[in-house]
């Protein structure tokens, strides 16, 4: 890790830092849910039309179109709910995690490119009416390409956010495969993809309940297709929820994570119960209820990620906060640093003494280390020697333990040396 990129980004101030964590949460909340719906709908639409190359089949063709309708893809929402959050998080998380926490591998730029081009192709795919304009193959290429790109973007967001909570792998950040290819990421990929399909299925069901015009037999067949997809994916979901929590890194675990996991199981359960009920009592409201239950599962899954991430990075955040606080008090880089006046140095030195040295030293009394009044006068006129000792203490007096190396900054060493000499000036 060179210093170069770090110098491009200023460390965020503590208040800003706090904000950033919630921006990441907010962005992933909208992104995962909406982009998941788009992805699920597109995957289902494209894969159904694969079975109907020339777009003639009277069941498959409308089904494919309805799946695209279920994906709820359109220009404004995709800009606001998917791409905008990505851009915000991409910019911010890049500066926060990549440069400040040294997570070297950074997928956000790639995510953005894939997501933008994927949604463009998908928008074109959705706009083209197969019966009039484009021949089937071109449409399929648009749909397949768009779905593929969008799918990759979704995948990368999942593994990137997963890597933030796997602190024990950050030391391998120059090896993306190690960092990203974890069992936990595999489980999360499965979880979000299943949820996406379930959401698209549930949305299709909701749409079918609202459509009255089409012939009843076809409508029923489509409803049943939607129910089948939703049911199958929801039933597989618990495996992945448990796998996700089981594979979380030790550092990311806490009580809230388990509680959220339990809640994550309850929503799909409720959706399945309502869905089964609809086989007996087919009321048009059930489509909406099922869809809401499924789409609400996304924010819970994202909250689970968030809690794990907060837990795993808690200490890093504390250190970062302290680092940014000391940086804030330091003069900005490049600003002229006028020669400090002696009083300033004295005051600064007193500060260092209070904070660090006073743990072991007094002026007139032996503590862990010798009293300054005894040892400092030897350094009169030899401030550089004193500074050298403080910078890198050597074992001197057998009557004392060795003084540890304290890791002070050069300015602090300068200041405290001046302070000590000044304070002991009148000692005989």
């Amino acid at each position, binding site marked *: 890790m060179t210093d170069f990129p770090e110098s491009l980004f200023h460390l965020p101030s503590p208040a800003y830092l706090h904000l950033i964590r919630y921006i990441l949460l907010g962005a992933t909340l909208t992104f995962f849910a909406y982009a998941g719906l788009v992805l699920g709908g597109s995957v289902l639409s494209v894969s159904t039309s694969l079975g109907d190359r020339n777009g003639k089949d009277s069941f498959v063709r409308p089904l494919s179109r309805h799946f695209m309708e279920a994906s709820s893809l359109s220009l404004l929402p995709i800009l606001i709910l998917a791409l905008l959050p990505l851009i915000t998080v991409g910019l911010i998380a890049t500066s926060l995690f990549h440069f400040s926490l040294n997570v070297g591998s950074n997928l956000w730029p790639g995510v953005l490119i894939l997501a933008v081009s994927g949604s463009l192709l998908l928008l074109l795919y959705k706009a083209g009416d197969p019966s009039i304009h484009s021949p089937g193959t071109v449409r399929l290429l648009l749909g397949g390409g768009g779905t593929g790109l969008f799918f990759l973007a979704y995948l990368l967001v999942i593994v990137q956010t997963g890597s933030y909570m796997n*602190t*024990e792998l950050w*030391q*391998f950040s120059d*090896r993306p495969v*190690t960092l990203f290819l974890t069992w936990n990421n595999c489980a999360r990929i499965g979880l979000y993809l299943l949820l996406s399909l379930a959401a698209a299925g549930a949305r299709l069901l909701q749409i079918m309940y609202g459509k009255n015009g089409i012939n009843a037999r076809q409508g029923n067949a489509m409803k049943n297709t939607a129910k089948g997809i939703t049911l199958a994916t929801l*039933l597989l979901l*618990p*495996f992945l*929820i*448990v796998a996700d*929590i*089981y594979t979380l*890194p*030790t*550092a990311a*675990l806490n*009580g809230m994570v*388990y509680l959220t*996991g*339990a809640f994550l*199981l*309850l929503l*799909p*359960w409720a959706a*399945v*119960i309502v869905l*089964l*009920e609809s*086989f*007996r009592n087919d009321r048009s409201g059930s489509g909406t209820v099922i869809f809401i239950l499924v789409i609400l599962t996304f924010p819970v899954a994202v909250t689970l990620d968030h809690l794990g991430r907060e837990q*795993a990075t*808690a*200490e*890093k955040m*504390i*250190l970062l906060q*302290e680092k940014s606080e000391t940086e804030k008090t330091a003069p900005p880089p490049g600003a002229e640093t006028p020669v400090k006046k002696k009083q300033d140095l004295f005051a600064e030195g007193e500060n260092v003494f209070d*904070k*660090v040295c006073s*743990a*072991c030293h007094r002026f007139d009394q032996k*503590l*862990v280390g010798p009293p300054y009044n005894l040892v400092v006068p030897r350094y009169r006129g030899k401030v550089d020697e004193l500074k050298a000792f403080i910078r890198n203490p050597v074992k001197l007096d057998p009557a004392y*333990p060795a003084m*540890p*190396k*304290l*890791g*002070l900054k050069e300015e602090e060493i300068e200041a405290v040396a001046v302070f000590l000499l000044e304070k002991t000036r009148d000692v005989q």
Partner: protein
Amino acid sequence: MMIRILQILITGYFGAFLLLLAGLGVGWSRMNLSPEQPIAFPHTIHVTRLGLPCNFCHLYVDKGKHATVPPLSICMSCHQNIATDRPEIVKLTGYFERGEPIAWNRIHKVPDFVYFTHKRHIKAGIDCSACHGEIGAMKKVWRVRSLKMGFCVTCHEKYGAPQDCATCHK
């Protein structure tokens, strides 16, 4: 009727996963990653604020197999005079005067059949945080790594350290 039965089955199905999850949760809390200590020793003050290096207290971390938790004499070299009125330090002084060693609860422990040594790792330039997390920011130490075999082996693989069984199982 059929539907009712299915609904009950489904509830049982999800309930089983809920139980599994609860089991995982209980297992996690039984691992007790952060046991209570006889004295609430804050690494935050000593490491981050005072800037003491780790081996100031963990004397043998770069010299031997065990890092060792510091003897009371190290604490008392400062706490004979510092913060002597705080309840935790009063407790500390009590131990010291009675000549009784503090029974710190172990947090990191590999099973007896595993051979682990700090010295080789520190000499190889590996940071404490790779295996212990950011101790300097923990008010109370907790274990943030699994210390399972996979954890050790993954890193050995990356650094090209020995991976044959006899390295860690003597």
